[in-house]
């Protein structure tokens, strides 16, 4: 053992005695110490502005706090009250309908679009890229801008949609898009379809392009029709993308706020109120901070169940062996 020479982490050999004391120690350990300096700025902000509020919010959800009063411990009361709260139940129902709208209308539509654009039904490469490019248009707007645009299209007396309905089907065909309690949820879902079908289609197109052409070719040669190819080969191979799109869409639906807030204010009669808007109203209109925190954690509970799926899908540590 050559005790007179030091080996640095990079394998360099030093003449006896060159680095000593702190410098030697630093030289040996810097590669495990420096990364802590690199992650420190991130984690300081992360701890202050995310980790701490997450814990604090959990704490508050078991307390009664009205405005700036001192929180008073009330155990599970907030959660118990929540289960009996008709407005919360209504907002949960509405938000679930938004999620179902994404699941049953928007995602299948996006999938069909992707399959058609990717198939021989669109034989020209230029046309394929044109369709894909047009999927991006709605993505350039924000939720706020989209909501404002749709509030004009949905205008009862003179909005574009009702103008056309009147033209073709007469006066009584007008729809109270944002004022009819039975229609508002559909109005919100249509807005969501407009905003998100394109991006979900892009995810599906990307997934489809990863499927080896030969598989589908081989099946077709073996006599499978397009439906058998789709169900037997395409959809099973697309499962990861379908899972990702589904989980993301459900996640996003449960966190919806701006669209109902700006289009309908949650009305009429709470028929479009979302969970997040109820949280917002509870916290920032009624200053019932403990109760609002309990709404937040109920939302977390719903979303964490989906997040487990999400994390598994992402497989973040795949490259770590």
């Amino acid at each position, binding site marked *: 053992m050559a005790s007179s020479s030091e080996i640095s982490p*990079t394998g360099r050999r030093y003449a006896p005695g060159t680095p000593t004391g702190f410098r030697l120690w630093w030289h040996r350990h810097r590669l495990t110490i420096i990364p802590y300096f690199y992650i420190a*700025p991130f984690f300081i902000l992360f701890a202050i502005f995310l980790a701490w509020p*997450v814990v604090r919010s959990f704490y*508050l959800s078991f307390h009664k706090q009205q405005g700036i009063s001192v929180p008073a411990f009330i155990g599970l009361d907030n959660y118990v009250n929540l289960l009996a709260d008709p407005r919360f139940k209504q907002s949960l129902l509405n938000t679930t309908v938004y999620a179902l709208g994404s699941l049953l209308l928007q995602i299948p539509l996006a999938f069909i679009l992707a399959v058609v654009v990717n198939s021989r039904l*669109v034989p020209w490469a230029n046309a394929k890229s044109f369709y894909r490019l047009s999927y991006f248009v709605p993505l*350039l707007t924000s939720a706020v801008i989209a909501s404002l*645009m749709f509030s004009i*299209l949905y205008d009862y007396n003179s909005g574009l949609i009702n103008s056309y309905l009147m033209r073709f089907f007469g006066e009584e065909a007008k729809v109270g898009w944002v004022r009819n309690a039975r229609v508002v949820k559909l109005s919100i879902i249509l807005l969501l379809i407009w905003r998100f079908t394109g991006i979900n289609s892009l995810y599906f197109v990307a997934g489809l392009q990863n499927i080896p052409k030969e598989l589908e070719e081989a099946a077709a040669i073996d006599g499978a029709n397009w439906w058998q190819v789709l169900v037997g080969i395409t959809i099973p191979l697309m499962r990861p993308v379908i899972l990702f799109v589904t989980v993301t869409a459900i996640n996003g639906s449960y966190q919806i706020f701006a669209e109902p807030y*700006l289009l309908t204010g949650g009305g009429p009669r709470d028929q479009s109120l979302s969970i997040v808007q109820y949280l917002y109203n509870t916290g920032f209109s009624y200053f019932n*901070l403990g109760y609002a925190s309990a709404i937040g954690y109920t939302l977390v509970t719903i979303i964490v169940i989906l997040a487990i799926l999400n994390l598994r899908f992402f497989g973040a540590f795949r490259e770590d062996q």
Partner: protein
Amino acid sequence: MTTSVQATPATGPRFSAIRIRNGFLVSLANVLLLIGVVLAAVPFIYMISASFKPQNEIFTFPVQIIPKEPYLDNYITLFGETLYLRWFFNTAIVAVGRTALSLFLCMLAGFAFAKYDFPFRRVLFILVLASFTLPFEVVLIPLYTMMVRLGWLNTYWVLIIPFAASAFGIFLARQYALALPTELMEAARIDGSSELGIFFRIALPNLRPALAVMGIIFFQASWNDFLWPLIVLNDSTMYVINLALPTLRGPYNDQYGLVLGGAVIAVIPIIIIFFAMQRYFIEGIMAGALKG
């Protein structure tokens, strides 16, 4: 239906027996797709067209896409009589500030997670990833209280600092940094480069595509933010565009031209980014699904 059995190239003409039926299907499919394109574009085109019309023409039917004569008063009012310029400036400062800070934090930390081995690396990274899936609304109440205590309401800080440590950002940064060749770093070390020098002179230049992709994501997220500004800003000189636009509707909710003009200008920066950096824009959108 009998089809030729021999394998033909995917692009070549095949299955000649069903080509006529295919011709019909191709037409049908493309007509439907074009209707879809029109539906996707209509609200957008309608917005631009209506912003160049006086109030009483916006709702004329049938719609005239190209206004009889372009009417600029909406824009003149916007810049002359409202604080629009100020709101635009606020939004831009916040978006640029948040993007720069997030990029720096996430790149440095993501690089450390990808290229160094240190105790608790896995645990810390899992902690970040776990937070990634939390809905941000859960921290709304305590975070708001904290901002009140700090006296940050109606400042730029309140929009820039709290969300700079992006979990999605660090996840992406790590993914990109994993692809950096370790030999490059080793070589620099042997040449006597400091670790910080390796980050700035080797990692960052090689991670430029990642910077572009993540920069676009951060910028757009900040530009489109609504709920948080709604809570922490109540002074109209500090508004960001998204917060100001709904107020432009006026007391009777009817000044549509003004709102739409404001919306058109608000979309322009995003459109510029989209066309100037299309590849990175698309990569950023796909990043969520395909990285990892």
